């Protein structure tokens, strides 16, 4: 029998119909919906007189626009409020389960899927959001789609796709102390570039990946799209099964046993071929900091801001010059000398309980620098509740961090959490594009540990040697 990759197995199980030219009707098991990319899809359904094929396969949550301040107060921005109310109305009209703004289970869409056991190995999962790649951490095929395709999946439970290519990203060895999955994925993007994964589904393999917790694997897969890959995945193992067991929407009883048996088959067979292979050594990965306006513009905290004059490629040189001008950085300056104004700990990349525990352990007993404004935004209401039960909120508050309600918040600044022009932020989120966190704002992507250390020192520090 031919050897198959993990991707091949999941893809083949979901083919409803394949044309001779390879155009495939792919079945979608799970569909996550949020308020920003869904209103036009529901409007399209209504206009065509269509209904969702399987409303029970859909879970909706408002996250992008929601305020992270007191939820008992009405949303100040009437346009944000209208978008959230439109989601509520659509879910009622079409019979879709919604975790509303005051539901303890509300949170960032890519946090709540795994948290509820909605995300399971072997599934195809889509959402009108590019960070849907997060769910690949469970050995699912999960990718972001546009609004027209949201409508397509609602109406048909299928998508028309061409089979993507496969890329293995193998990371072997032991990470340096205090380095994390965030540093691994930033280093991978630095190596392959922001378009290196275009057209591919990435499978992350190797001893470093195996040693990651589920939360670390989610951080890793989350940023696959920043390397151009629509989906990233990690084969399920005992860590995966232990994480899912007992979650509210996970299978129970005999069905659980049956599912776990099936999940054990979800591995890449020995000898299976990928279309491309990339290899990294964990020991070579320093804590990463982005210096530019694209996630591939990244280096170790022990490095320097690059000098465009040394770049041979004209387009690359121009892009680097433009990025440094926007970021107000001087070529050659040490990364550690970059001073920051704000710190954001949150987003679908790094706002799970493990991230907050780690961040709190570094913040404990220390004070945020007087020049820095720092905030922590938990990924969901349940993460917030758990953190408060463990006393993490008190540690953050005593250190001078603000402790907020769950949502996407300053990752994309659609709500009131916005950088002012010229402000510089150490952020645990996933995108450092121009204006991403607010027009004129400057974003440096880092791990939660690096973000806390920067908040306390007022500039970047090498977390490996920080006491």
């Amino acid at each position, binding site marked *: 029998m031919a050897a198959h990759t993990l991707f091949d197995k999941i893809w083949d199980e979901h083919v*409803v119909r394949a*044309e001779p*030219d390879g*155009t495939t*009707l792919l*079945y979608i*098991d799970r569909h996550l919906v949020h308020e920003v990319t869904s*209103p*036009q899809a529901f*409007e399209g359904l209504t206009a065509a007189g*269509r209904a969702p*094929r399987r*409303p*029970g*396969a*859909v*879970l909706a949550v408002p996250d992008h626009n929601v305020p992270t301040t007191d939820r008992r107060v009405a949303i100040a921005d009437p346009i944000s409020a209208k*978008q959230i109310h*439109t989601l509520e109305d659509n879910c009622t009209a079409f019979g*879709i*389960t919604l975790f509303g703004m005051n539901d303890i289970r509300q949170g960032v869409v890519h946090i709540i899927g795994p948290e509820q056991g*909605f995300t399971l190995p072997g*599934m195809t999962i889509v959402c*009108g*959001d*590019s960070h849907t790649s997060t769910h690949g951490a469970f050995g699912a095929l999960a990718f972001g*789609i*546009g*609004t*027209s*395709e949201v409508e397509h999946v609602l*109406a*048909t*439970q*299928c998508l*028309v796709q061409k089979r993507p290519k496969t890329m293995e990203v193998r990371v072997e060895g032991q990470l340096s102390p205090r380095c994390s999955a965030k540093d691994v994925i930033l280093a991978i993007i630095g190596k392959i570039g*922001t*378009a290196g994964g*275009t057209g591919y589904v990435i499978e992350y393999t190797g001893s470093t990946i195996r040693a990651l917790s589920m939360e670390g694997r989610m951080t890793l897969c989350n940023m696959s*799209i920043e390397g*151009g890959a*629509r989906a990233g995945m990690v084969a399920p193992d005992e860590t995966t099964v232990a994480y899912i067991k007992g979650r*509210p929407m996970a*299978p*129970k009883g005999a*069905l659980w046993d049956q*599912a776990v048996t*099936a999940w054990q088959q979800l591995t890449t067979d020995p000898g299976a071929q990928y279309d491309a292979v990339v290899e990294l050594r964990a020991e070579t990965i320093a804590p990463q900091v982005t210096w530019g306006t694209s996630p591939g513009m990244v280096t170790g905290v022990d490095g320097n801001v690059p000098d465009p004059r040394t770049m041979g490629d004209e*387009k690359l040189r121009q*892009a680097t010059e*433009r990025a440094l001008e926007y970021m107000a950085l001087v070529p050659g300056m040490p990364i550690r000398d970059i001073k920051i104004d704000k710190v954001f700990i949150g987003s679908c990349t790094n706002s799970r309980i493990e991230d907050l525990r780690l961040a709190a352990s570094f913040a404990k007993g220390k004070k945020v620098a007087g020049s820095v404004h720092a905030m922590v935004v938990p990924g969901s209401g349940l993460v917030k509740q758990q953190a408060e039960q463990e006393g993490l909120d008190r540690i953050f508050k005593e250190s001078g961090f603000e402790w907020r309600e769950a949502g996407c918040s300053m990752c*994309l*600044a*659609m709500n009131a959490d916005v950088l002012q022009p010229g402000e510089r932020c150490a952020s645990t989120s996933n*995108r450092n*594009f*121009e*204006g991403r966190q607010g*027009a*004129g704002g400057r974003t440096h992507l880092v791990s939660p540990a690096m973000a806390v250390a920067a908040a306390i020192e007022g500039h970047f520090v090498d977390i490996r040697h920080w006491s």
Partner: protein
Amino acid sequence: MDAFTTLTGLVAPLDRLNVDTDQIIPKQFLKTIKRTGLREGLFYDWRRLKDGSQDPTFFLNQPRYQQATILLARDNFGCGSSREHAPWALLDQGFRCVLAPSFADIFYNNCFQNGMLPVVLTGAEIQALFEGVAAREGYRLTVDLAAQRVITPEGTAYHFEIDPFRKDCLYRGLDAIGLTLQHAGQIERYEQRRRTQAPWLFQDVTQPRGAL
């Protein structure tokens, strides 16, 4: 969806690498619940100087590109977020076609859902087109989907590849959902088979928690 057959139109050049969808349409314009009227947000921050006034050097503010229907771009155009507001905003501005050496996957796909043609040409061909646009005001191209060709004013024809299914849908302006629904019977049979093989995939999230 509007069909795309042949387009002859003015070309506007955007000479930047890795243009992300946050630049094409910033987040404050994503709060809309409509697909139309997004032109105002197109390249909103790039169109303006720091004092908020229009930047006369930005290509879309230059009179010579006002009626452009073809956007000329660089590598990895449309990277980042999946927001379909990006092609909606380009369409609202009047663009029906984007030419680049490479596109991000989700953006590329979103274009086809909206009657818009993304064309991949080689880096050298794109460079030649940038030079052509710079050299002559009123530079126009013809994009012929049926023949898969981009034709310059000098008569040079550049061939481009396109997936046959996408081409057919775009050329005829087909309703993608309607096409899929023609296979409803096959979807039904797939579901029946999978329900037996992997019943946990069919647990309904609307059921009370703990059910099953």
